[in-house]
């Protein structure tokens, strides 16, 4: 058990190297190794004791001169993002089985490389290690978008780059600042928790971290890279970005902002809360009129993430628990939606809603799975989306009832744009183009059936998932409150 986390972290890196060298066998090699990773993660989850403690901890001195150590571990806050990452990577690899990419081994190797980066982000207990993981996850996705993206990728990537590099720089400054304030002269998160900074200092650190995380999620008004990037990135890249990467931002807020700078939170948390809620309504309204279904889903993702963020900043058990389970649910649902868009784009050469229609008649299997994913997205009770959105809205409600009403508009607006999309693509008369549509088959079916099963299982019996993070969330809240009380 000792080395389990180490294996989990570096197995994908080894797989990446093997995949890069495996030539035409890259796809099966990548898939199998990602499944092994999933297996390792499953062992980890099964051996995880759902209390508030840090488990599977590893701690090696690394760059001792600077007080940097390779310190990582798993607790109730990180277990769900870890599960999500290891669950989605094989699914995303499987989605590429039917579509060919040039230079396949490199493409897949980058994905696996990224997996290590993501897992580092979710397990690091050392700020420097966290930063390394953050960048290690960003660089591959940048290449994936820049090399395999759509026609407009150069311009779009420029914007993506400016945003993310900007965000990362601020975060680095924040980390260095904390390090300099730390009498122990290290990057240990525990030491950061115990720092005694005044409100002004905490406010600066808050913004340094928040900018990076807000861009990553993204939160209004730091979002304009996202629709462009999601639209231009190759399908697998979009799934990685929306399914897993944006959770880095959400996780970052929970792990690094809440406990480290609670005073910054009392100063600026409400601003972040309001921005999040504005984003929900703003992005939903934009989604109303989008003609490109992929871009529409990109905007819908901004709305959904806005609610998650608002739930976190409402700082209560329901909001945080809602955020934890919704990270998982949103990842599953959004990957499903983008995969369907990819399937449609591959067959029809367009994602323009106006050009499609009537596909349900010729593709009944797709009609069913697409509908189930739409229902998960609009948070119908009995699907995974409901559990998360219900808890999140309840969390938001406890801050302010009007905030809950405003944020709750997502319930209505979500139905408007998702059902409009579903109707535009699937219902109505079959036209000359859509008449040629082939129903989903093979690996496409496997992926979509798994996603649908997860949507329903989590929706009907969410207890095991909620239980994973319950104690840790409780402890986190106590920690924040205690720190606030001690200051007052």
């Amino acid at each position, binding site marked *: 058990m000792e080395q389990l986390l180490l294996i989990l972290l570096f197995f994908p890196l080894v797989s990446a190297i093997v995949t890069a060298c495996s030539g035409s066998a890259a796809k099966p090699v990548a898939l199998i190794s990602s499944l092994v990773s999933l297996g390792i993660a499953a062992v980890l989850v099964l051996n995880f004791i759902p209390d508030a403690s840090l488990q599977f901890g590893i701690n090696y001195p690394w760059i001792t001169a600077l007080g940097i150590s390779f310190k990582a571990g798993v607790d109730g806050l990180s277990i769900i993002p870890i599960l999500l990452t290891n669950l989605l990577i094989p699914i995303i690899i499987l989605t590429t089985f039917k579509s060919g990419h040039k230079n396949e081994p490199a493409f897949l190797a980058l994905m696996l490389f990224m997996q290590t980066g993501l897992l580092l982000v979710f397990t690091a207990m050392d700020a420097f290690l966290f930063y390394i993981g953050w960048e290690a996850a960003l660089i591959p996705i940048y290449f994936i978008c820049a090399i395999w993206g759509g026609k407009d990728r150069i311009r779009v990537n420029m914007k993506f780059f400016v945003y993310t590099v900007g965000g990362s720089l601020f975060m680095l400054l924040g980390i260095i600042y904390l390090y300099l304030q730390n009498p122990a002269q290290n990057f240990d998160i525990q030491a950061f928790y115990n720092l005694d900074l005044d409100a002004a200092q905490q406010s600066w650190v808050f913004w340094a971290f928040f900018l990076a995380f807000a861009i990553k999620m993204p939160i209004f008004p730091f979002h304009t890279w996202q629709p462009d990037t999601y639209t231009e990135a190759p399908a697998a890249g979009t799934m990685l970005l929306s399914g897993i990467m944006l959770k880095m931002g959400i996780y970052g807020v929970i792990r690094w902002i809440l406990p480290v700078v609670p005073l910054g939170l009392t100063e600026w948390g409400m601003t972040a809360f309001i921005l999040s809620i504005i984003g929900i309504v703003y992005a939903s309204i934009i989604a109303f009129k989008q003609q490109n279904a992929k871009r529409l889903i990109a905007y819908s993702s901004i709305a959904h993430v806005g609610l998650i963020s608002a739930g976190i900043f409402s700082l209560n058990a329901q909001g945080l628990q809602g955020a934890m389970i919704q990270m998982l649910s949103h990842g599953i649902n959004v990957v499903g939606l983008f995969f369907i868009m990819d399937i449609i784009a591959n067959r029809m050469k367009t994602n323009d809603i106006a050009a499609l229609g009537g596909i349900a008649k010729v593709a009944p299997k797709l009609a069913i799975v697409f509908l189930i994913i739409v229902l998960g997205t609009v948070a119908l009770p009995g699907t995974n989306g409901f559990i998360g959105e*219900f808890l999140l809205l309840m969390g938001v409600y406890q801050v302010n009832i009007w905030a809950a009403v405003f944020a709750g508009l997502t319930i209505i607006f979500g139905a408007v744009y998702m059902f409009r999309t579903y109707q535009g693509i699937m219902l109505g008369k079959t036209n000359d183009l859509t008449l040629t549509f082939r129903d989903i088959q093979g690996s496409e079916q496997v992926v979509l059936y798994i996603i649908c099963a997860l949507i329903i299982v989590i929706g009907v019996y969410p207890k095991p998932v909620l239980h994973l993070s319950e104690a840790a969330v409780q402890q986190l809240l106590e920690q924040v409150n205690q720190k606030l009380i001690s200051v007052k």
Partner: protein
Amino acid sequence: MIINLVWLVPLIPFLGFIINGLGRNTLSKNTVAFIGSTAVFASFVLSVAIFMALGNDTHKSHEVFLFDWIRAGQLNIPLSFLVDPLSSIMLLIITGVGFLIHVYSAGYMHDDDGFGKFFSYLNLFIFFMLLLVLGSNYIVMFIGWEGVGLCSYLLIGFWYSNNNYASAAKKAFVMNRIGDLGFLIAVFLIFNTFGSLEFKEIFPKAAGLISSGDSTIILITLCLFIGACGKSAQLPLFTWLPDAMAGPTPVSALIHAATMVTAGVYMIARSNVLFELAPVIQHLIAIIGLATALLGALIALTQTDIKKVLAYSTVSQLGYMFLGLGVGAYDGAFFHVITHAFFKALLFLGAGSVIHAMHHAQDMRIMGGLRKKLPITYRTMLIGTIAIAGLPPFSGFFSKDEILAHVYEQNKIMWAIGVFTAFLTAFYMFRMLFLTFYGTYRGTTHHAEDHIHESPKSMTIPLIVLAVLSAIGGIIGIPHSLGGHHWLSEWLSPVITHHAAAPDHATEYMLMGITVVGVLISIGIAYNRYIGKAHVPADENAERSSLVGLSYNKFYIDELYDAIIRKPLDAMSGFFYRIMDTKIIDGIVNGLGWGTNEASKSLRLIQTGNVGFYIFMMVVGIISMLLYTYLSI
């Protein structure tokens, strides 16, 4: 004890949904119909047994716990069921009427390609509807609440190749969702106030915790009422229901008349303890109910599509139920839910039989004289029409008069409007009956008269059963003034403790007299106009006087919503996307990007480079870091 098996009641239709859903393309139509109908019948038998057991039991409220569903902090929501007089009687209606409609559908949908899909959806609907009424807390109720909304969406858009039908389905879902947001907010408020969402925790505490007219309880009941408005098609959220007629007719009978749309009434009756603490909201409910009743009736006066007449009539009758709830006559409103389930299901199924015979024509202007061709349909529909018009001793008379009597005690003007609406009801219903079944046949050669024949037994038998129920259903609530003892009111008394003031017997006889005479006169006017003068409504584009035009065009409410809600939102959408995102925010980012011009130059180099090289570089970087670690230890 049989009551502990209540979880089987929803489970059996759910299994029917699974089997028919999976076998929709492989099973024969007869098998599908058999599985679907038998599942609901089995639930019905079980419901009867539960109902009997509850009747013999001194304890009138049983909770059946299944498992813990959602937990977070103080919040704990179990999936558990509540069997009490209110839910047990709903079980009977849902499974009983539901079964008849399943049987009917076997005939009605026989030539449809989506037969298997249709039956699986119907079973799924029954499942969710049962969940709605069985829930022991607001959240389980909400699962059913949204679940029936989904089934409604699927069934309205059953013939989705027609884009208008698909739009009608979407409209229904979205309008329901507006109400559902109200429901959700109410749930949060309730949890915040009572610390629980369980009925058994909330209702006994309510009166002690909150004083009447407290702002919290007003907000809670207002939000619950908004939820009910969406589901039960009350002003201003009613416009989805007439459009929902796009679905196959059995769906209109089951979902959009007998069961789902009465869920709002059920929910308010269930929460009657809370509403009694908020008189302001009660007045609001009464006013909205009355306005909806009147508006629905006014629109129904001039409609020419047989299903649209029935749809607006449903809106109007639901308005009566809310009027009853608003004056505190919860048992009266619930009584009307039951009788309405009988006669409105009957009328829709009868209309379906006519449409079936007319090869899917629904316009009454091309019907006429059908009573000889469709004798069973005609006779049963006649009974249904009398029942809804409110003539004794048919069921609708008792329930409607009970509501109106209570209204009279509270407010004479509202009573007058309510009675006037009852006269309108009698007029438009007999107008429908006369236009369809009397006079001479007005169809074109396309709908040749010779081809018109009575529907098969699977369709007529449910009609006959429902006609009997519509005729005699009133016996469950015969008032004391007529020598009865109002069984329903007694049965519900453990749940509905409040009894609204009723007028004395003499006043009650007078009120009954006024309605009966007025209804007879209305029927006379309709007879004179549509049989005596053989009047036929004008064509689509004919000139109409302004008042008739207003009714015929549904008071332009859809157009109004379009102008004040949809168009502004669309405009905002364009503004946010093209100006805010593209010009303002991106403009700022690009301005910042100017400073990083150097970065873009190096980027250009990257894009022409070799991927393998970068991966190599990354790996080298990582390995060198690890090596450094190793060496520094």
